[in-house]
């Protein structure tokens, strides 16, 4: 298999990811496949805790590439995302070089020796291909989003003193967003859009089985159905996949093989994080009417 075509078809993606413990549904596998073929970043959007970040980690593991991660937050700027000049080292150099011509010194201190690479530049300069994860991109301010554009579309970074640094190898880029705000059109245009919602009952059951060792299939099935039911209710924060995994672990630890109403009510706090939600679900499970 040539190195620039890592997957032969979507099914190969799915099985490679499954090998890393990530169960992708058809759509996820297909988008990852397309992304590898078109060299376009994947923008994974969806509620918290459905495995967006896990997807990037699994892709990195499946491809055997290192993962470079950029965690976004409000106030992130280019010195944290792209690169920064190592001022202290430059100063030391200037002091050591006293008496030399300025032009000479200038050419000297603005070289790669004095450059501190940050995740984006690091991903691009890496001699071996990497997987670049830009996590929670919706936390960036709109202005900062623009930082990403050059990297995402052309895989290059312009540094005024050094010129443009092009990617030696094309990184596989995954961006994640919890959709707390709308991303700019410019960013969205450069990406393949992948909406990851809550999994189907069957897929959630398989995820539970894969993640919780020693779990009885019957219990996994039961939990998956219960969680799907609870998500269908009007709760403030629907339970995520990671929370349903926690719940199953709780049930297994308590030795509950077949949860009935009482045991469900006692452990609901693992699944739901708002008291009003817990009360509401407990109330609705108690009433048998539609």
């Amino acid at each position, binding site marked *: 298999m040539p190195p620039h075509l890592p997957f032969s078809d979507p099914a190969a993606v799915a099985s490679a990811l499954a090998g890393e413990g990530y169960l992708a549904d058809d759509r996820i596998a297909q988008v990852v496949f397309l992304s590898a073929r078109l060299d376009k970043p994947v923008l994974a959007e969806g509620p918290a805790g459905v495995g967006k970040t896990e997807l990037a980690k699994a892709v990195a593991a499946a491809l055997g590439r290192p993962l470079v991660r950029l965690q976004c937050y409000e106030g992130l700027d280019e010195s944290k995302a792209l690169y920064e000049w190592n001022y202290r080292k430059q100063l030391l150099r200037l002091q050591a070089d006293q008496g030399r011509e300025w032009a000479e010194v200038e050419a000297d201190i603005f070289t790669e020796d004095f450059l501190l690479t940050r995740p984006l530049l690091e991903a691009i300069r890496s001699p071996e291909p990497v997987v670049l994860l830009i996590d929670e991109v919706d936390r960036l301010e709109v202005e900062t989003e623009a930082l990403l554009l050059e990297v995402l579309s052309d895989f290059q970074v312009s540094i005024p003193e050094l010129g443009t640094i092009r990617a030696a190898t094309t990184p596989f880029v995954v961006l994640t967003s919890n959709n707390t705000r709308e991303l700019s*059109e410019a960013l969205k245009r450069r990406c393949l859009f992948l909406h990851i919602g809550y999994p189907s009952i069957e897929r959630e059951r398989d995820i539970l089985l894969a993640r919780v060792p020693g779990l009885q299939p019957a219990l996994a099935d039961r939990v998956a159905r219960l969680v799907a039911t609870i998500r269908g209710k009007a709760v403030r924060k629907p339970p995520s996949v990671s929370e349903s995994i926690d719940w199953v672990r709780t049930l297994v630890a308590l030795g509950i093989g077949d949860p009935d109403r009482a045991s469900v009510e006692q452990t609901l706090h693992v699944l739901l994080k708002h008291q009003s939600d817990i009360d509401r679900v407990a109330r609705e499970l108690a009433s048998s009417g539609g």
Partner: protein
Amino acid sequence: MEFLTRFVDELRQVGIPVSMVEAIDAAQALEHVDVASRSMVKTALGATLVKSARNLPAFETAFEAYFSLLGPTPGSAEAAERLRSDLAAIGEGAGVGGAADLDALVEALFRALRDGDQGLAGAVSRQAVSRLAGIEPGRPVGGAYYLYRVLRSIDLAALEERLVGELAPGPGEFEHRLAQDEAQRRIEEFREAVRAEIHRRLVADRGPEAVARTMRRPLVEDLDLVSATRDDLAAIEALVHPLTRKLATRLARRRRLGRIGRLDVRRTVRRSLSTGGVPVDPRFRRPRSGRPDIVILADISGSVATFARFTMQVVFAMSAQFRRVRSFAFIDTIDEVTDFFGAGADFAEAMRRIGSEAGVVWLDGHSDYGNAFLTFRERFAESISPKTTVIVTGDARTNYHSPNVAALGDIAAGARALYWLNPEARRYWDTGDSVMGAYAAVCDEVHEVRNLRQLAGFVEQVALPVSRPVRRLG
């Protein structure tokens, strides 16, 4: 390729923004996929053309219309083969063999749903549509009509009862409750399958353009706030927050850019003394804070409650853009409800508390705008200052009570501006008991605001200092 451009056109018609680059991406993506696989094509187009989760339903609808023919073509040997196997599957278990009648069909459906047998359920939905929908070629009817005809013949409620009985492993209320949810879920899947099958046949009959047109549904931000269904409301609800954040960022940036005010001649000249009278360092006045005070008067009677709710939600989500926000709710009298929307308050909960705890009902619980404005003038006049922007939301239907335009006029006179947002279509204003025209005379502006897009546009206009109207005298 030409088919792709037609599809992109359809998406744009619905209102999904598709750029040229994205269309090219879609074409490139299609080169890498197996075009015979419907799901693969759908993913390829979805990932390249649609960049927002709220546009996905519209995309699905359009995709269904345009790509539903990627199956066996009617009349081909393949289709005939499928018909035979469908009939066999349905007939076999029911013990009829060959031509299955309606009972056998329902029976087969029951087995399919009970065992979660996708193949059999598919066969049943195809057969059900063939027999029960009675699709007439060329008739310009939407899919909903045929769906109704099919489902009318199959008693889904009875089927659900039976399913619940079979699915519940033990007695117990809790078990019953779970089985009920499960049964509903499976029946919903079947309904979906029937709908898809009907669309497939309609497309085969009338072509994708015509079907897509009848299936078109507005995007979430264009949904009518007053007549929205429960599902629609949930979708709107989910959109409010991201939308307001986007709006707030944009406003904050514009305000920052507009920071520099007019030249301050006095200070510039004084500074220039140190440079021999050359004004090298011009000084500017700091512009006055443009953030207005907001007072909302919202009619929360049944007819327009949802609208009031979204207006308040948007304004509160953006309260950082205003100096101070106070809100008052009324039905036939008025009360302050600002405190119900404290930090972190759940919006639905707040609305419920307003209904039970705030004194918004005086006599009979029918909107009385006149009395509400009178009461406001008496009790809350201090909340209005020349810096206050007043927003009234409601349909101006007074139930034939006295409108008391003068009271609203006094409120308007004390405020910087008074806007009225009416969720009714403009053509219904001043019909029946609506007195919009009378109130409009004392309002600075009256807006028809029927969906989220218009609402966001209005809030932006109020928050931005540049578009501030000058208060007229008198």
